[in-house]
C-alpha cells in the first residue's frame, strides 16, 4: 500500500518509494539518510500539527509535515 510519510502514525514504519521534493531538498534528505529503499519509522508527532520525529537507521530527525508529504512510502504489510 502506498501513502506519504505525513500520513504515518507514531510507531508505524514504511519503505521510502519515491521522493518528490525538488533537487535541493532531495539532496539534503539524502545526506541525512532519507534515500530510496530505506526503512523509515515515525517515532512521534508534535501537537498542533507540528513536525514529525522520524528514525532512519541510527539517525533520528525532525521533519515538517509539508516536507514529509513529499516522501512516498510503501507500507510494510
Amino acid at each position, binding site marked *: 500500500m502506498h501513502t506519504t510519510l505525513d500520513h504515518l502514525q507514531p510507531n508505524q514504519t514504511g519503505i521510502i518509494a519515491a521522493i518528490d521534493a525538488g533537487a*535541493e*531538498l532531495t*539532496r*539534503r*534528505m*539524502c*545526506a*541525512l*539518510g532519507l*534515500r530510496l529503499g530505506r526503512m523509515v519509522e515515525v*517515532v*512521534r*508527532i*508534535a*501537537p*498542533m*500539527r*507540528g*513536525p514529525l*520525529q522520524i528514525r532512519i*537507521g*541510527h*539517525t*533520528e*530527525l*525532525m*521533519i*515538517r509535515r509539508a*516536507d514529509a508529504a513529499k516522501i512516498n512510502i510503501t507500507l510494510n504489510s
Partner: protein
Amino acid sequence: MMKRIALLGMPNTGKSTFFNRLTGAGARVGNWPGITVDLLSAKVLLAGNMVEMIDLPGIYNLHGFSDDEQVVRHFLESQAVNGLVVILNATQLDRQLALLLQLKTLRLPITLVLNMQDEAQQMGIKIDIPRLSQALGIEINMISAKYGQGFGKARAAIESLIHQQTTPIHADASAFGQDDNIEIMLDRIVSDTVSTPVTLPPDISRRLDKLLLHPILGLPLFFLTVFLLFQIVYGIGTPLQDGMGWLLDWFKVHLLTPALSNAPYAIKSFITEGVFDGIGTVLTFLPIIVIFFMFMAIIEDSGYLSRAAYLMDAVMAKVGLDGRSFVMQLMGMGCNVPALMGTRVMRSRALRLLTMLVIPFSLCSARLQVFLFFTTAIFAPRAAAAVMFSLYFMSFAMAFLTAFVWRGKYRSHEPLLLELPPYRFPTFKQLLTEGWQQSGHFLRGASGYIIAGVIIVWALTHYPFNVPPASATTLAGRLASWMEPIFQPLGIDSLLSIALLFGFIAKEIVVGALAVIYGAGQANLSGILAHQLDWVQAYSFMLFTLIYTPCVSTIAVLKQESKSWWFTILAVVWPLGLAWLVSFIFYQSARALGW
C-alpha cells in the same frame, strides 16, 4: 609559505571539540575574503612546521545549497590547502561516508578521523578499520574527542599528511560542478565494513525523549527547563556582574580619581566618565557571557536545543522563526547581548538575522530596573503589577509583530530538517573552552564600538565643560530642545529625552541620569517624578524605553554578529520608529479619552 589544513565534517560529529583539543586555547576568528560567517583558525606546531588549522562549518553535503555548504564550497574553491582532515561520526557511517566520498573527488590529500568511538562501542557497532581504509585509500583513526582517546594517532596522521603534501594546492574545480553518483559505492562499502546490531537496545535517549517530547508534558517541561536555565545563568551571572561593577567603582574612586586630582576638569572627566566607563561597560558583560555560553553549550551539545525546535515549531513557524529563536528570546530577558551571540547555533543566515531583529525587544533586566523605579514612583501598588505585566506583554507583541513584518525579507530557504542526536553530556573542559572563546570574541569584536559609543554620549552630555553636565546648555540639552517637536507628541519633555540619550549607553544608568538631570538625589527623585509627570506621560516614557534600542552594547554585538552595516542600521531604526509610533498612539489616545 604557511601550511594549511582544513577540518571538515557533518554537524554534531564533535568536530569543534577535536579542533579545540588539537589547537588548545589559541584559536581565533579569522577573516576570509567573501565569507560572511566566522571561521575559527589556529596556528599549531606539527612536525616542526607552523600549520594553520581551519575549522570549517559542519555540512551534510558538498553540493548542498545551505549557507554553510556554500561557505565551505567557497572556501575550498578559493583557498589552497595541504590537506583535509575529515571527521565523521562512527555511529552514523552508513550515511556520513557519503560526504567523504564527495570530498575525495576534490583530489586533495585526506585523512579520516572517526569520532564517538565510545558511543559506537556502546551501540554495538563494529567497524573493520583496515578494510575500510583499504576500500577508501585513506588512513583512518578512531578517536573519542570527548575523552581524548586515540588523539595522538590522529595527530600523527595529520603530520604525515603535511609531509606527503608540502605545498598548499587547490581542489580539483571540476568536482564542485559534477553531480555525484556514489550511492552504490556507499552501500557496498558500508555493508562490507560496518556491522550494526539489528535492533537497538531501548537506550536512555529514547526514554528521555518519551518524556521530554511528550505531546502534553513536552512544552511545560521545555518552559520549565528554560526557566531553570535562566535562573541558573543569571543567578550565577548577576552577582558576578555586580561584583565586577563594584571592583570597577572601587578602582575609579580610590585609584583613578585621586591619580587625576591635579588634571584639568575636561581631561579628568574624559578619562573617568568617558574612557573608563566605556571600558567598564565592556567588562561588566564578561561574567554573564562566560556563564551564558557555558550553559548554552550544555543545552546545545546535549541535543536538547534541536528538541526545542521540534516542540515550538508549530507556533514559531507562523512568524518565520523556530524554537531555537524562542529560547534566545527568553534568554534575552536577562541580557540581550549574550542572547544575540547565542543565535550562532542557527545555521541559516536569514533565520539568524530575523531572530537578531527580534531579541532586542526582550525586556532585559536593565530595563526592568527603570520600570520598577517608575512604577513604584508613579503608580499605586495594585496598578504597578498590571503595568509591569502590560510591559512584558508589549515586549512579546513587538517581537512577534517585527518577525511577522520582516519574515518575507528574511525568509529562511533551508528546510527545517534537523537531526535529533542522542543526548550527550559535554565535559567541563569543553564548557570552559566555550566560555573562554566567546568572551574573547566579544572583547575583540564589540569592545571598540561600545567604548566609542560611551565616549560620544559623554561628549554630548558634558560639552561645553563650564556648565553642569546634562543641563540645557550642553550639546545633549541643545539636541533635546531641537528634538522637542518629535518627543512632545509622546508626552516626553526635553529633560526626559536627555535621559533617553543616556539610556542609549546602558539602561542601568537611566535612573541615575534622571537624578543628575533633575538635580536631585536618587532618594528624592521618585517624589519629583511623581510631582512632574502624570501616569500617561510616565507610561508613554516606559513604552518608548522598552521598544527603542536597548543599549550601545547591543548595537555593537548586532554589528559584530551580522557583519552588515545595513542590517545594524535597520535593527536600530526600526525599533526607534516602532517606539515612537506605539508611544504616540498610546499618549494621543489616552489624552483624547480625557485621561
